[in-house]
C-alpha cells in the first residue's frame, strides 16, 4: 500500500452518451415541421385585362394553329384529332415556318381535366425550348440555359412564345389575346 498510484490528476472525459438523444430530438423536430414540397413548375405569364380593346385581328389561317381540348381530354388541332406525341413536331415545324408572325390558340373545355391542359402546355413549351436551344447553339455556341440574360432576351425576341387562350366563362365568350414572353 505504500506505492499507490495517484489517480487524482486525470480529468474525467465528457459524458457523451446523451448526444444520440439530442440528435433524435432534432430529427423529430425536422420531420414534423417541414415538408418536401415540389419546387418546380411551368412558368406562364398571364396577359393583363384590357377592357378597352379586344384583340380580334383576323389572322391568316396559315399563321395560326388552333388547339382545342374536348370534354374527354382529347386534343383537336384545326378541327382534326391529334395524339399528344404528334403535337411537338407539328408545333416545331409551324413555328419554324412562320418566324414571328405565328399565333397558337388554345381553348379548353370547362369540363376537361387540368392534367390534359398541362400536358398540352408542356408539349408546346418543349417545342419552343428545342427551337430556342437550336438557335442559341447556332448563334452563341451554347445551350439556352447557359446564355447570359441579354443573349436569352435576344433569342426570346427572335422566337417569341405567342400563345393565346380563348375560353368561355359561364355566360359569354371572350378572348384573351396574349403574348406571354418568357
Amino acid at each position, binding site marked *: 500500500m505504500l506505492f499507490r498510484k495517484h489517480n487524482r490528476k486525470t480529468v474525467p472525459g465528457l459524458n457523451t452518451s446523451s448526444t444520440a438523444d439530442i440528435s433524435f430530438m432534432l430529427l423529430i423536430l425536422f420531420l414534423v*415541421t417541414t415538408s418536401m414540397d415540389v419546387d418546380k413548375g411551368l412558368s406562364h405569364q398571364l396577359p393583363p385585362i384590357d377592357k378597352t380593346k379586344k384583340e380580334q385581328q383576323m389572322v391568316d389561317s396559315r399563321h395560326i394553329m388552333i388547339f382545342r381540348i374536348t370534354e374527354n381530354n382529347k386534343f383537336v388541332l384545326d378541327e382534326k384529332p391529334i395524339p399528344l406525341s404528334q403535337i411537338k413536331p407539328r408545333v416545331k415545324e409551324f413555328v419554324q415556318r412562320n418566324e414571328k408572325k405565328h399565333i397558337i390558340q388554345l381553348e379548353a373545355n370547362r369540363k376537361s381535366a387540368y392534367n390534359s391542359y398541362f400536358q398540352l402546355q408542356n408539349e408546346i413549351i418543349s417545342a419552343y425550348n428545342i427551337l430556342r436551344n437550336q438557335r442559341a447553339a447556332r448563334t452563341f455556341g451554347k445551350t439556352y440555359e447557359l446564355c447570359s440574360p441579354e443573349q436569352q432576351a435576344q433569342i426570346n425576341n427572335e422566337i417569341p412564345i405567342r400563345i393565346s387562350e380563348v375560353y368561355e366563362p359561364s355566360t359569354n365568350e371572350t378572348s384573351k389575346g396574349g403574348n406571354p414572353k418568357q
Partner: protein
Amino acid sequence: MSLYRRHNHAIPALNTASLPDLIFTILFFFMLVTHMRKASIKVKYQVPVGTELTNLTKKSTVSYIYIGKPLGETGQVVSSETKIQLNDKLVSLNDIKQSLVRERNSMSPEERKAMLVSIRADQNTNMGLIIDLKQILREANVLNVNYAAVTKPKR
C-alpha cells in the same frame, strides 16, 4: 499467473459509439432536402408530371394556391367538391380576389413586380375552375403564374 484464471464468457454488448453520427447524417439530409412548411395543407392534390419545368426562385414573394378535395381532421377526403386554398385558409372564388389584392398592397413595389403565384392543382380538376381562377388573377393584376409539377425523365 495461476492456472485457474476466471474465464469471463460474457458476450460483449453492441458498441453504440457511432449511433449519434448516423443520426446526424440523417438529420443533415432532412435539413437540406426539406423546407419549413408555412401552412398546413387542407386539400388533397397530386400535381401533374412535366418536362419543361423551371425552379421557383424568390420564395418570399410566392403565394401558394392549392386546389383539390378537402381533407377532414383525420386526413380523409371529406367531400367530393373541389376547394381552393390560398396560403393557409380555404377560400371561395369571390374571396380570392380580395385576399390577393390585400397581399399585393402589403408588398413593396419591387416585390409587386416579382410577385408569383404557384398553382398546385390536382390533376383531375375541371378546367372550368382553373379558367375562373386565371381570370380572377388577371383582374387582381397578378400576372406571374407557375403551374407546379414534378419532373418526369425526358424520353
